[in-house]
């Protein structure tokens, strides 16, 4: 949000309200730069395997495919980290591998193009202000 465009009394009020909210509801706000809305980090196994976690950009893919292609035809569930994706399945043509097979899109050898996240970034969908305030980060697979 704006750095110094907000008038001081208003800003103080907002800060105060924010502090109160954090204290009262126990919601933590992780200071985070504004990654693109809808970016999904999938990190159920990558950290443990010593790979950077993959980042799936919704904005990039929805320019090329409607939601239904992935969420109906390919069976991606609407839950960050909820699909138990791994490399075996991808190489087998499931999930990302339905397209990243050298035909519809470039193939699996391009490890670092998918595995581009900061190590240690938890599974999440980068969402709205409201969601950050009242929601919890997306649970890892199996926790829901």
């Amino acid at each position, binding site marked *: 949000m704006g750095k110094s465009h907000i008038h001081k009394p208003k800003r103080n009020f907002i800060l105060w309200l924010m502090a109160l909210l954090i204290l009262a509801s126990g919601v933590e706000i992780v200071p985070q730069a*504004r990654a693109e809305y809808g970016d999904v980090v999938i990190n159920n196994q990558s950290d443990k395997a010593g790979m950077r976690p993959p980042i799936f950009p919704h904005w990039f893919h929805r320019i090329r495919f409607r939601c239904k292609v992935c969420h109906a035809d390919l069976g991606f569930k609407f839950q960050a980290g909820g699909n138990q994706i791994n490399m075996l399945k991808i190489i087998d043509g499931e999930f990302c591998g339905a397209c990243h097979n050298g035909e519809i899109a470039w193939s699996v050898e391009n490890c670092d193009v998918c595995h581009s996240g900061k190590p240690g970034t938890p599974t999440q969908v980068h969402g709205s202000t*409201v969601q950050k305030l009242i929601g919890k980060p997306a649970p890892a697979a199996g926790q829901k």
Partner: protein
Amino acid sequence: MNALLKWLAVIWAVLLWSAAPLPAVAGPEKWTPLEKDGLHDPQGPAIHELQQPGEALSQMPPDSVGNQVRWVEALRKGVINPRTNILPETKIQVLDQDLIYGNTGDNWFVLFPHKAHTEWLDCANCHEGVFKSKFGATGFKMMDILAGKACGQCHGAVSFPLTECRRCHSIDPGTFKGKLGPQQAAGGKP
């Protein structure tokens, strides 16, 4: 108590949002470069092979929230033409039917357009998992939506965020003369 706090949070979010000035320029600077977005590793060997959001998204009908793109407009104006299927047997079905919800307290009524949704989504994305195929049968409240259920599955994660009250609460009860529920002639809202 918890509910009250959550509403305060919503009010705060709206306040903060409305206090932030709209970006004066519509160039690619509106979008955070990947190296600085806090998610991508600036040291990643392939970071420069990725497309910067600003490069693609600045070419589209502008918005002030989410991806800062009016996705429905981008699709309808043909600015983008995303594929509807990769499997040949996929059925493509668009339903042109609006639903109007009236349990909105002092707020404006909610218009749900099937058309804008089925241009992107399959019926099975919502029916019967998220919503029953009967107006009012599912039963959800604003709190459910804010908690990521019902409309909040997508709005607040991928589709325009929940700070945009008026995009859903778009019907003025003062001037609305029709009946709530499924509308006869569809396409009420563009």
